[in-house]
Structure formats: C-alpha cells, structure tokens
C-alpha cells in the first residue's frame, strides 16, 4: 500500500433540497461512513436514496448543510473540488469532446504544472495501464463506450488522486462489457491501492467489486458490511430485499436459544441461526429465506415440511422452482445434478430449510 493512502470519513453529513411539492427534503440525512485507507467501498441503493448526493459531497461538487467530511483526518468540508485532489469517473464519462484522448488524460497534469516530458511519459504509462496504448491522437467521439470508459478511468488515476470516486460508471455499457469492466476496475484498484468509493444501484456489481458495501435508503446508510454479511445477515427487510433474491415469510418466535431461534412459519417450526438480539418469544418477525437455502427432496421426508411444485424453469446449470408450501409460494433454486434430476411440476416434495443460511428481520 502507498504510504500516502488515506481513509475517508463522512461524519453525520446532511444535505437538504427545496422541493416544489414537499417543501424541504433530505437528499442525505446524518450519513456516516468510514472508509479505510485503500478500501473499496460501494454505496448501494435504489435511485433517490442519496448515494450520488453523498458521493458528490465527498468530491466537493456539493456542500453539506451539516456534518463534516475528512480525508485522512484533514477536514475538507469547505474545500472546493479542485483543491481536493480526487479522481472522479462520471456515469456519462464527461470526456472533453474537443480534446484528443492524450490531452484528456493530460488535463489534470497540465493543471498541476507538470513538465511536458513528465506529462508525456505519465499519459503513455496510464493509457497502457487501461489497455489503450497508442490511442493518444483519437478523439472521444471516435471511441466505443468501453474505450471512453477507459479514458475516463485513465484521466482520473493519472493525477494519483487521494481518493477515487465512481458514479455508476458502468450503467451505459452493455451487459457483457459491464462484467468485463468491473473486473478491470477492481484489479486496477487493488494494484494502485487507492481508497475508492463507488456508487451503483446494481447489487451484483456491488458484490463483485467491493471490499465493503454500505446500503442506503431514504438518504441514510441502513447497513454496511461485506457482501456476505449483507446477504446472510441483513439487518432490515429493505436490505434483505435489495441484496439478492429472497422469500420473506411472516413468522412468530417460539423459542430463543443462544445464537438460534425457533420460529413458527409455513405450517411448521423452523430453527434458524440468528444473532438478531432482542428477538423474544412471541415476537412477530420475518423469516429471510434465500432461494438456495431451501432444499427440495423428491419424496416427502418425515422431518421436513412438504410442498407442491407449481412451476419450474430449467436454466442450464440451475433449475428454478416455484413451490407452494404452508400457504406461501416460495422461490427455490436447485443445482442441476444431471439429466432427469429436475423435479416435475405438480409433484409433491419434501422442503428442508438450511438453518445456517437463514435469519430473521423485524417485521
């Protein structure tokens, strides 16, 4: 890791907007984020959740109404964007259309008054790094979307920014390129070890690139943690729904043990691993059942629940089922175990819940 690598602290930051109908609304409300030096943190949430506003405040394009933003302990809240030494990648790339690729990348270096020879060398190095060696003389209008994206990336990293900021950088690319580019961004970030904050509404993209994800909703961070944390131990129904596919089933706590709960749902009692503190016997909760945490057996088993297959979709490596069980319709994913292994629609099956992969959230 670079010795100069710093962390970013967003400390209780709020931003209000005047709204024509609703009066004053909060675009961001008491946002707290602590990004460690060299970490790749993603702000994930649906549109209007405040993620882009938060990012723009970190960049210095917007000024918070309350709270503080610190770069490695230095208070930058009142520092304009041009003095923060950041690299920003816009959703629409925002390349300078009147400058060739080389000049686009050189812009930040020229502003910093670097000698011509250094600029030349750095531009060539960075363009090679993003796989665009020899593109110096081309104009942005002549490039494909993926290439434009790489130029935007090169332009942001060439100045060796303290923090790298991405605002939905892949949403203008087609699906295949999106996967390719996100892997490249991740690899490049690892290599350069620049503290990075990334905004997206795509939970799969967030899981693929991030060290840590902060899920935002209604202007605030509702939960942050690794992709696995968020998937397996969502704190709220919103997080459970937003990260991954889920069956949310109304349930009642019947027994509480150390690290486990017995809940009544789907016409039976199911034991789940849960660290959710405070859930007491008699509480109404929601059972978070991931599609792959439900195991189907071809014949009903005595210890398990039983269900009927309503529909099935064969998808190659996996098979998706819709199973009627205890008055609910469940989404279930099973792996294809070979020809003839898929269960037929209409058949009665045994339904077992994987307690380790299941949790509850408050109702």
């Amino acid at each position, binding site marked *: 890791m670079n010795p100069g690598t710093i962390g970013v602290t967003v400390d209780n930051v709020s931003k209000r907007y005047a709204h024509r109908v609703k009066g004053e609304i909060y675009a961001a409300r008491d946002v707290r984020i602590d990004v460690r030096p060299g970490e790749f943190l993603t702000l994930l949430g649906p549109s209007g959740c405040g993620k882009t506003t938060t990012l723009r405040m970190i960049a210095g*394009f917007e000024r918070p109404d309350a709270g503080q933003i610190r770069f490695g302990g230095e208070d930058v809240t009142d520092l304009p*964007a*041009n003095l923060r030494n950041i*690299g*920003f990648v816009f*959703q*629409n790339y925002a390349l300078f259309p009147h400058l060739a690729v080389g000049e686009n990348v050189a812009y930040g270096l020229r502003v910093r008054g670097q000698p011509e020879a250094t600029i030349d060398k750095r531009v060539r190095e960075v363009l090679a790094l993003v796989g665009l060696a020899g593109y110096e003389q081309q104009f942005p209008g002549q490039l494909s979307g993926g290439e434009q994206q790489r130029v935007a990336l090169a332009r942001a990293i060439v100045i060796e920014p303290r923090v790298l900021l991405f605002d939905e950088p892949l949403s203008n690319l087609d699906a295949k390129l999106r996967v390719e580019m996100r892997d490249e961004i991740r690899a490049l970030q690892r290599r350069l070890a620049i503290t990075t904050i990334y905004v997206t509404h795509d939970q799969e993209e967030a899981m693929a690139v991030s060290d840590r994800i902060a899920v935002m909703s209604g202007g605030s961070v509702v939960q942050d943690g690794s992709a696995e944390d968020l998937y397996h131990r969502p704190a709220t129904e919103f997080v459970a729904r937003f990260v991954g596919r889920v069956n949310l089933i109304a349930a009642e706590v019947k027994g509480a043990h150390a690290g486990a709960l017995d809940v009544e749902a789907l016409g039976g009692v199911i034991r789940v691993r849960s660290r959710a503190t405070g859930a007491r016997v008699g509480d109404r909760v929601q059972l978070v059942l991931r599609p792959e945490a439900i195991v189907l057996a071809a014949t009903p088993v005595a210890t398990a629940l039983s269900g009927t297959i309503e529909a099935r979709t064969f998808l190659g490596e996996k098979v998706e089922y819709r199973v009627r069980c205890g008055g609910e319709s469940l989404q279930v994913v099973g792996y294809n175990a070979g020809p003839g292994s898929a269960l037929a629609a209409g058949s009665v099956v045994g339904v077992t819940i994987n307690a380790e992969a299941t949790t509850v959230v408050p109702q």
Partner: protein
Amino acid sequence: MNATAARPAFGRDPAVTAAVIVLWLLLALFVVYPLAMLFVRIVVDKGALDLSGIVKILTDRHQVRAFWNSLLLAFLVGIAGTLIGFLFAFTAARTRLPRAALTLLDASVLLPLVSPPFTTAIAMIFSFGPRGLITYDLLGIKGVTVYGLTSTLCSEVLTYFPIAYLTLRPILAAIDSNVEGMAFSLGASRWRVFRTVTLPLAVPGLANAFLLLFAASLADFATPLILGGNQFPVLPTQAFLQITGMFDLRGGAALSLVLLVPAMIVFLLQRYWVSRRYYVTITGKGAGQTPFDSVSPWVRRALLTACVATVVVVVYFYALLFYASIVVAFGANHALTLQHYRVIFTEGLKAIRDTLIIAGFAMPLGGLYGVLLGYLVTKKQFVGRRTMEVVSMVNYALPGTIVGIAYLIAFNDPPIELTGTALVIIACYVFRYGPTGIRATVALLSQIDRSIEEASQGLGAGSGTTFRRVTLPLIMPAFFAGLGVVFIRSMTAISATIFLVSISWTLITVKILENMTELALGPAAAFSVLVVAIVFVVIGAVGWLLRSFRAPGAARVTSLLGG
C-alpha cells in the same frame, strides 16, 4: 444522377405529384425568375451585353467606400453583438437564475427582436439627437450630430444581439455540466475551466452567431438610412438612393448584387465550416444532476449587473419611443397629447389597413407553404427534392434589398406585371419568411421516428388517415411557428418591400420611414408603438396556440424567429 433511376419516379401519389408541380411553378415564378431578371437587367442594356455602365458605378469612389463601410459595420456588429449575446446566454445557462429573472431576460430580448428593425434607430435620435434627451436636456450639448458609424453600430447591436443570444443559449445549455465539473475536479480553477472547456466548446456557436449578425447587419437597410447620414453610406442605402433618387434601376441592381458576395461567403462558411464543428454530445444518459456551480458569487454578480445594464438600455429606448408618441413635440414641447395617435388613425389609417390585410393574407399562405414544402421534402421521394429545398431557402438567405430590387425588375413589365398590387408584397413575404416554417417542419419531422407512422399503418390506417391523424397533429407547431414569423415580419420588414409599395398599397414601416425623413417624429413613434403592440398580441396568441397544440413530450419549436 444515376441514383435517380432506382428511386420511384415522380411520385405514385397523384396528390403529391400535383403539389410538387404547383410548388415548382411558384418557386420558379417568385424565386428563380426575379433573380434571373435581376442578373439579365444588370448585364444587358438595350438588348445587348453591356458592362461599361456597371463597371463605372462599381468603381465609383463613393460606392467603393460604401462597400467597405458595409463590411466594417457588419464586422463590428458581429463582434459586439456576439459578445453581448454570449454574456446573456452564459448568464442564462450558467448562473442558476430564478425562473422569474429568466423570463424577464427573455422578454427584454424579445422586444428588439420583434420590433421593426429601425425602432432603436429612432429612439437613438430621441436620446442622442440634436434635441436628444441625453445630449441636449441632460448634457446641454448643442448642435450635436448623431449620424455616423458609432450610432449606427450601437443601434444595430441593440437590435441584433438577441439573435446571438438565441443562437448561443441552447449551445451553452447543451454543454454537459459534468464535463466542466470533471475539469474542476481535476484541479482547474473556475476561470481555467471556462477558458479550456466551456469556451472551446462554444466556439462553433460563437462563430455561427457572428456570421448571423454579420449577415443581418449587411442586409440592414433602415438603420443606416436613418442614422448613417452622409458621413456613413453603406451599400443597401446606396442601392436604394440610386433607384429612388437617381431613377437608376440598373445601377441600384448592380450595387445590391455586390452584397451578394459577402452574403454568399457567410452562407457557405455557416454551411460548410460551422456546422461541421459542433461537438456532438457523445455521452449516453444524462446524469440529471444539479449543475456544478460554474461561476463564483462575485462573477455571478458582475454578469447579472452587465445584463441588467443592457436590459435597462433596451427598456429605456422603448420607453423613450413611447414617451415621444404621447407628447406634442419631443424635445420642444413635452405636453401630453394623443394627437399623434389621432394622426396615424386618420391620415395613416390606410397604411395600417393595408399592412394588416397584407399580413393577414401572407400569414396563412406562408404557414401552409412552409408546412407543405417541409413535409414533401422530408417525407416524400421525388426528383429534384434536394434542389427544391435549396431553392426554397434562397429568398430567405439573400439580403432583402436584393430580393426587393429583383421583384421590382421582374414584375414591373409584362409578361407578369404585378407592381403596385398587394399580391407582389404578399408573395415577397411568403417566399422570404415562409422558409422559417419549412425549417421548423423539417426539424420536427426528422425527430419523429418513421416507426410512429408505420405503427399507424400497421393498425390498418391508410396513408391519408395516417397523415391526418398522426403526422398533421405532430407538425402543427411548425405550422403555427411559420405563421407567427410570417405575420411578425409582414408587420416589421422593410428592406425588400420598400421597393414594392405603391399608391394603392403601402405599409406602416414605409410610413414610419417617410415620417422620419419629414421629421414628423411624433407619428413615427406612434406607428412604432402600434406595430410593437400588435406584434406582441399576435406573438402571445401564437404562443398560446403552440402550447395547446404541442403533444406532451413532443419536440418544441423554440424560436418564433427561427434564426
């Protein structure tokens, strides 16, 4: 030419064929024929090719000076007008003005745009003339001459800078504020962002604005006639004086034709240089974010102050004009009176009635002509389609003086004797200002996806029903835009039609000019106020029609004046 063989020959639809033939006949008669006659008249004298008289007048020292004066004036108007237009456009697009302030800015810009072109010239005399409010009453200077380059320049800049504003504003608004934000985040100061990003991206727009103003000034006839005086002759006024003063139609024609050279150069530059230098927005989805603050608070204040100062000057000029129309004799007797209005509604009533009748006929005809021709050249395939589009723009692009003299020459004698009739004036307006409607129609139609019409046909509608139910409603805004422009120009134009008025048919604008030369300033002011009032009422009505006919989400026809 070989490619035409592959195309369906001359339209299978008899209605289209008929419309195309009629349009070609009209274009031949009112665009090609007058210009051809103008050329012939210049080079042929008494049945033989003769260039000596022409060479003599074109090498006359006085006329050569007028030529250079014209170029100098146009150049200066281009520079100064573009600067003020950019100031307004930048302020409107980049300083997050409140809505009310923007409306005010637009309204004050509209004022000179829709007035007769010489209204500011008249106000200039009221303000800075021998008995002017500022020169005489405020500063006490006696025997001042307002005539010359400076006053002509100021007056034309105030008249034409709105064109630059309307050209530049959409260009500045289209510059993605993220691009500026990006430069800012890379460490550039706001000034550097402006210098290295905003300004370079606006260069094609600036060039275009300059060329438009250059052409407008070059063709302007009334302002220099009022303000140029003997000190500062320019080509359009020289051509006019040659014809009306020396009764030398041929010499006037030759002089007007000299204007064609710079006008053509400007047109070619616009078409082949400027249009290729617009940077297409290469980005996909807009970010939809609030724009980045591209000016610091004190720059914002400075910009606003400069805009307000300009607006104050414009408003002052128009207020002065109004004041002069309600006092007995401006500069001498400031007792309030309505006598000038009484005069224009008695002695001047004929001019008002004639103008309204002519405008009333030209308006629907021009609107229809624009939509029909625009529709045919975009949606139908026929031989000579491109040529028709180009020919239809000729009268629009030429300085009015050339068009007026050409019409005068062409329709003065048999076989087609129209001089002195209302028809020749109406035709002049339809073919000179109808092209705004053509351009609006072409722009609207090219934004309408072909699949919309195909969807209608796929649902079983015939091509007639599709046109009536789908295409027509979509191009209604263009029809009203064309209508509005033809009406406004019919009320305010003078450079071409001053050659076409007669005892039987005259125009308010010509009357104003006559009043000015007879120093009947009161009636001139009253006439001007009347024209501005009528035009504002009509613009309001057309604007209302445009809004009520615009389908939600359909493209807007933004400018009533169409560049």
